[in-house]
């Protein structure tokens, strides 16, 4: 058994190493986005200094591309998908734990299969379906796909949390004459807030970062998302690294912002005082 300081030192070394590993590439991207092209290649690990500092990448991105549209598209798709995943996920989690109906177990099982089967396997079928529905090259198509992709996991996680909510609360609300929908929205949902924040973070990161579905489902500039938009700077023969790094640096910001917003909600112990 190690003594306490040595133990905590070891833990900290591991955590610092991991943080460096995770943050290193991001730091490189952000750092190099503020450098001139030669400096990027000359000394990729050096931070920008007075001679190498340049905003050329950002200037190009804003001038040469529809970056504003891409950003807006990414935000719309991510936020609408997140909202729908959370709403339907929480409602389904509540329904599946609270109401026992014919086929409820089968339905829960069917939904958890969605966690195991990667949605990309269905890409061709999804593309055909969207074509047939006249939805290809629309943000709606992306939103539908992402909702389908996010729901199984969110139902799974939220069900666990719903089960932890004391049954007496729901019984008390019923005795109080609160209608079932209001029980969900005004008693259960507020208590699920920490869980919902967790699921929100889990849901938005892969959606924001996704390249695959925008690539196959959107074709025009007006529907591209930021991840796809960045690709136009990556050529077969020349890559405009200034622009790529500038666009990527900017693409990080909204996710960080959303994470900060939701992490405030990740307060445990919100149910303290409900029972016992």
């Amino acid at each position, binding site marked *: 058994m190690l003594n306490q300081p040595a133990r905590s030192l070891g833990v900290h070394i591991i955590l610092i190493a991991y943080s460096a590993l995770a943050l290193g590439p991001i730091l490189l991207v952000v750092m190099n986005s503020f450098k001139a092209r030669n400096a990027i290649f000359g000394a990729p690990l050096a931070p920008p200094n007075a001679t190498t500092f340049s905003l050329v990448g950002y200037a190009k991105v804003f001038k040469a591309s529809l970056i504003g549209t891409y950003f807006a598209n990414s935000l719309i798709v991510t936020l609408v998908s997140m909202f729908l995943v959370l709403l339907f996920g929480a409602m389904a989690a509540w329904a599946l734990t609270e109401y026992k109906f014919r086929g409820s177990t089968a339905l829960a099982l069917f939904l958890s299969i969605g966690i195991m089967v990667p949605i990309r396997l269905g890409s061709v079928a999804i593309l055909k379906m969207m074509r047939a529905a006249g939805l290809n090259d629309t943000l709606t198509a992306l939103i539908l796909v992402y909702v389908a992709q996010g729901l199984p996991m969110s139902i799974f996680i939220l069900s666990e949390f719903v089960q932890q909510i*004391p049954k*007496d*609360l729901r019984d008390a609300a019923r005795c*109080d004459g609160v209608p079932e929908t209001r029980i969900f929205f005004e008693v259960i949902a507020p208590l699920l807030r920490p869980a919902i924040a967790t699921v929100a973070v889990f849901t938005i990161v892969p959606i924001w970062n996704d390249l695959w579905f925008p690539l196959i489902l959107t074709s025009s500039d007006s529907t591209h998302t930021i991840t796809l938009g960045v690709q136009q700077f990556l050529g077969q023969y020349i890559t405009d690294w200034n622009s790529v790094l500038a666009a990527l640096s900017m693409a990080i910001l909204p996710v960080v912002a959303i994470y900060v917003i939701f992490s405030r909600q990740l307060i445990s112990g919100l149910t*303290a005082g409900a029972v016992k």
Partner: protein
Amino acid sequence: MAGLHIDKINKSYGPARVLADIDLSIVDGEFVVLVGPSGCGKSTLLRMIAGLDAPTSGDIFIGNRLVNALAPAERKIAMVFQSYALYPHMDVRKNMTFGLKFTGVEPSERERRVAEAARMLRLEDLLGRYPRDLSGGQRQRVAIGRAIVREPDVFLFDEPLSNLDAALRVSTRVEIARLHRLLGATMVYVTHDQIEAMTLADRIVVMNQGQIEQVGKPLELYYTPANLFVAGFIGSPAMNFFPAEVESIEGDKVRAKGPTIARVTLPAGSLTRGSKLTIGVRPEHLTAGAPGDFSTTGAVELVERLGEASYAHVRRADDKLMVAEIRGRDTPAPGQTVTFSAPAEDVHVFDEAGRRL
């Protein structure tokens, strides 16, 4: 305000029968306590009255309305839970008014009711607090307040004091008794604690294994328990039981003997020679030394001193322990052999099936 009538209620979960043919009538304004060991079905019965569980068969009437098909809110009941079940994200005032919003009570009326309930339960200073900032006793008072503002026909309490510490339990018990007097409402109260049952109830319903063993006033149950279960359940420490057999009948006197009984003389009744009996005597009715119609001897093993009385745990001839209450300062020493006796009127006699004779 209304009475409550339960007619042949059954409840089964698959093959397991939780409640069997329960019949019970509660008059308007009565305080009825359902008491029994855990798993006896008392909470299930309460939840069915509330409408939170449906009976497998049978009818429930509140007032004169058949309420089987009605939702909890439509039954004009209010329930107080063991876990308080306060809405954690609402302050005390909101906790009390939340349900009223949906039952069409005007805001001014809501305020009036909350103010009145808060005054009754001394919650005025707590209205703006959240449940997490309240002590256990305060939370339970808020839960009771939430029931009061609904102005229900019937109050249902599901072990409301079980989560409170001993001192609070006593004061909240008094509070509930006071409230019953004040409101004059019909109350059904579930507990496994027979002291709560004895102190609060107008009538006690003793339940065991899904059936009602006896219904009666607290002292009726204490002095004339209908069977061995009730005799053993009501009273603390529990009644001592002694196996016995009728030895001889002389006129209107019966002599019985048993391995742990020195002597017992009983009124004749329907006993015949050789009938097997169980004799029950409460600890508080056993007196050391004095002569009596019943007497038994054993070695004192342990003496618990409570102050106003002491409990002597006595090893009997059949190696089981019995308890005798000893008043006063003279307590027997452990190891001492003592003869305890009781007068015939304090001796309970049960037949082979456990029914009172």
